[in-house]
């Protein structure tokens, strides 16, 4: 072990988890493209390490939401039946889908995330008082989207906020703070369901995943602290651009072209 590469992995996880925390998304969507393109790391190894990062971010950030009563644990466990089932299917599929198609799916998910960030989230009209108890309507649509989120999470090693957020905001009509907290709570279990399988298969390499885990914990904690003091409009637009660039890169990778990260 020489340390330089481990430090780089730590820094990548720290940065992406911090920014992920600022934007209310998991770090995986940034980690996988960066590891494969700049680190020249094999896609499956990158996905395995990213799943660890998703678990770390979810666990490290959960406590304050739970203490404030923002996390809806009963709804979470109900939706987790769908996300873990999706993860189970994703683990199974991941063994069959050729790498270039995984790159392509990843590129599309990045584009979708960029689009979602431009559109922003709106509070839909609903009973405003939380204490009366809001009800989660349209459960079948919500469960279907959650199943898809679990599937994509296991296939690409991401938290799948891109599917969970519309599921919770639009289909289930939850208040934004509740759906963010509940989604953060759920991504850990969803990622764990597939991470266990990846670990058993030997796709989670300790020298890569261990520095990533530490960076993610630190990043998630720091990100949550900064979140309170930041006007995020400019940040959002910057990230829309980054997501588009990463998407283009993943698209090129799907066709076997790598423009950056020429040196291993």
């Amino acid at each position, binding site marked *: 072990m020489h340390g330089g590469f481990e430090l780089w992995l730590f820094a990548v996880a720290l940065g992406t988890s911090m920014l992920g925390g600022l934007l209310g998304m998991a770090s995986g969507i940034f980690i996988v493209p960066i590891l494969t393109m700049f680190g020249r790391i094999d896609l499956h190894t990158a996905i395995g390490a990213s799943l660890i990062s998703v678990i770390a971010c979810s666990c490290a950030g959960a406590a304050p939401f739970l203490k404030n009563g923002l996390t809806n644990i009963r709804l979470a466990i109900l939706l987790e039946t769908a996300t873990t089932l999706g993860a189970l299917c994703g683990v199974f599929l991941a063994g069959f889908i050729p790498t270039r198609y995984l790159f392509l799916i990843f590129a599309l998910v990045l584009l979708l995330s960029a689009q979602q960030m431009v559109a922003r989230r709106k509070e839909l009209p609903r009973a405003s008082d939380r204490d009366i*108890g809001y009800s989660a309507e349209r459960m079948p649509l919500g469960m279907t989207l959650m199943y898809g989120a679990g599937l994509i999470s296991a296939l690409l090693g991401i938290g799948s906020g891109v599917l969970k957020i519309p599921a919770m905001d639009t289909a289930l009509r939850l208040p934004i703070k509740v759906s963010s907290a509940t989604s953060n709570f759920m991504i850990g279990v969803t990622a764990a369901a597939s991470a266990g399988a990846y670990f058993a298969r030997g796709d989670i390499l300790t020298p890569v995943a261990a520095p990533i885990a530490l960076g993610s914990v630190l990043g998630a904690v720091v990100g949550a602290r900064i979140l309170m003091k930041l006007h995020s409009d400019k940040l959002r637009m910057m990230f829309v651009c980054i997501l588009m660039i990463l998407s283009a890169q993943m698209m090129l990778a799907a066709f076997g072209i790598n423009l950056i990260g020429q040196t291993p």
Partner: protein
Amino acid sequence: MKTHITSPHRLEPALGALLYYGTIVASAVIALGLALAVGLDAAGMRVAAFGLVLFILLPVVRVGAMLIFFLRAGEYRFGAIAALVMSIILLSFFLGAR
């Protein structure tokens, strides 16, 4: 189907503490392993790998804690849901191992 959310807020702080302290323990084990790996490569990496396993198990332990809580509180419907989530996770582990 309508799910009403009127949480009694008893389990939430406990789950928060479980995840908080679990994160600290798993991170400490990984950090220790990486530090050891600088000197004695293989053994240190095994310690770090154990830390990664702790991280993967942490959310699963959280589901287990919810399962026990719901059963004790007599909320059998949610107990059954937690049991279902637990079995899907374990099934995924075993299918992945093959």
